[in-house]
């Protein structure tokens, strides 16, 4: 989790803001690189981070023998007791 948060911080605050000007000297297609990270790349990275976390935590849950009734992407009804 700490690793994922580090990536979150580096991509958004360092690549997208603090080092945006130096990165803009490089180009990705028609984008200045820093500008691309700020307005596109960071959002893609955020999505990947939440995906990696959801997969990794489901794996940990299973290792602890927790019944995970929410297989990724599958809809299901609640298994809990009604309130």
């Amino acid at each position, binding site marked *: *989790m700490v690793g*994922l*948060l580090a990536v*979150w911080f580096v991509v*958004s*605050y360092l690549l*997208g*803001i*603090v080092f*945006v*000007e130096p990165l*803009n000297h490089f180009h*990705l*297609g*028609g*984008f*200045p690189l*820093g*500008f*691309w990270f*700020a*307005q*596109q790349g*960071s*959002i*893609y990275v*955020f*999505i990947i*981070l*939440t*995906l990696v*976390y*959801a997969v990794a*935590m*489901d794996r*940990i*849950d299973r290792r*602890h023998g*927790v*019944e*995970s*009734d*929410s297989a*990724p*992407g*599958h*809809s*299901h*009804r*609640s*298994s*809990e*007791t*009604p*309130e």
Partner: protein
Amino acid sequence: MSIQGWTYLLVGITFAVYIGIAIWSRVGTTSGFYVAGRGIPPLANGMATAADWMSAASFISMAGLISFMGYTGTIYLMGWTGGYVLLALLLAPYLRKYGRYTIPEFVGDRYYSQTARVIAVFCAIFVSFTYVAGQMRGVGVVFSRFLEVDVTVGVLIGVGIVFFYAVVGGMRGITYTQVAQFCVLIVAYLIPAIAISWKMTGWAIPQIGFGSTLIEGQYAGLALLETLDTIHRDLGLPEYTGAWVGGKKSMVDVLAITMALMVGTAGLPHVLIRFYTVPNASAARWSAMWALIFIGLLYTTAPAVSAFARVNMIETLHEKSYTDAPQWFKSWEGTGLIVFNDRNGDGVIQYSGNPDTNELTVDRDIMVLANPEIAKLPAWVVALVAAGGLAAALSTAAGLLLVISASVSHDLLKSVMWKDMPQNIELRMARIAAAFAVVVAGILGIYPPGFVAQVVAFAFGLAAASFFPILLLGIFDKRTSKEGAIAGMLIGIGFTTAYIIWFRFVDPTATADRWLFGISPEGIGTIGMVLNFIVAITVSRFTPPPPLVVQIMIEDIRSPSGNRDS
């Protein structure tokens, strides 16, 4: 068929669908009303969260704002998406595991204190009302422009619809209406974006077209972003992709605002409460991921739309004769959102970065709504955008109203005044509170306080400075005591409120040199959050630790095992 005819048709169909869903999913229990019986699948919750989150501001205003801000628009793009990483990793699964119905309820239990709960309730209500006023206003603007009814009538129709499905359907009705609203709003956003990208760059994917070469108009053959930089330089404006060039926000301010928006997102009650509607912690993590994918779809398209709209607008209007101005220009002029002031009397529109020679003022809010017309797309696309704007505003309004309703009926009436209130009475109270909140929201939409735009920054600042630190410490620091939490919240809220009121109302002309560390009121929630953390942790070290039951409860929500719902 005319634009107006199409708009009546599409808005009519979508509203009929929302009402149909509300009747189909009506609820009869408090669990159904507050958390949709916790039976929402992650994918559906992802869509509902995306619609809940993407408000009139995201749909109508954001691309327009970025269009005028260039690089600095990044604060919204990263600020309003990055918070979902924090939600998914740090808050949502744990709060879901703890269960219960509201965020103030968690605060009250974790900090074994009614005082903490009541402070949290007032924050939740304040933040939600601030936000909902803007949504109702958005509904009114769309109605008045596209259906040519009075803004008041527009707001009343919006109030009527939300009243129906929020009061009848509760969280379950809201959730499934939000799923439908997400579909409407994303289609309405993407179709014109794709059409414009295709037309201007030959790429059907706006995210790629954004970084490629223009194929039509006077700049054909040139890269889009480079062209924008050139146009801006020629008009005497700071370069579009430039970050710290003259006239833009400073780095420290961009850092602070981005942080405040991210952390504020993760602390907004109407977003957090969505994660209570899924069956378990794993489903909460997956719904955060789905939500971010669905939000990302709009948020990665928006900056492309901004750039296309910017080129289009300048190309269509700058140095063009007023009498030849296109039809859309005339219709928006009627709403007062475009103003042409012919300073040199030559009958030609001159757009410039110099306030003394500039003759064209365009309201940021109309860029998305006017874009399909500017790009000469067919009438039904324009109508679809109107329906999408309404979907975005109504879905967010409904989510906020539910937070207000639950705060009043569950956190104030039930927990403070009448502890053993029977379920059927609590449900009726929740409905009355929702109805009351809808009416207040409508009044705020019809008679908007002049400072709506300013107070929205306040909503984020407050959420960042109050909820986020207290929830995070509540989950990850067993030592944080009730005294620490209350002191932290009060200092965070007090500081942020005082700073914003001072620089918005007492000294509104202040510039960066008078701001604390050069941070504008929009970003000050970041400092409020840091203060909250420092005070909460320090005070906790000098006060008695939380009782054993609370410590056991914290260990329990952090261990991977089943739910605590009883």
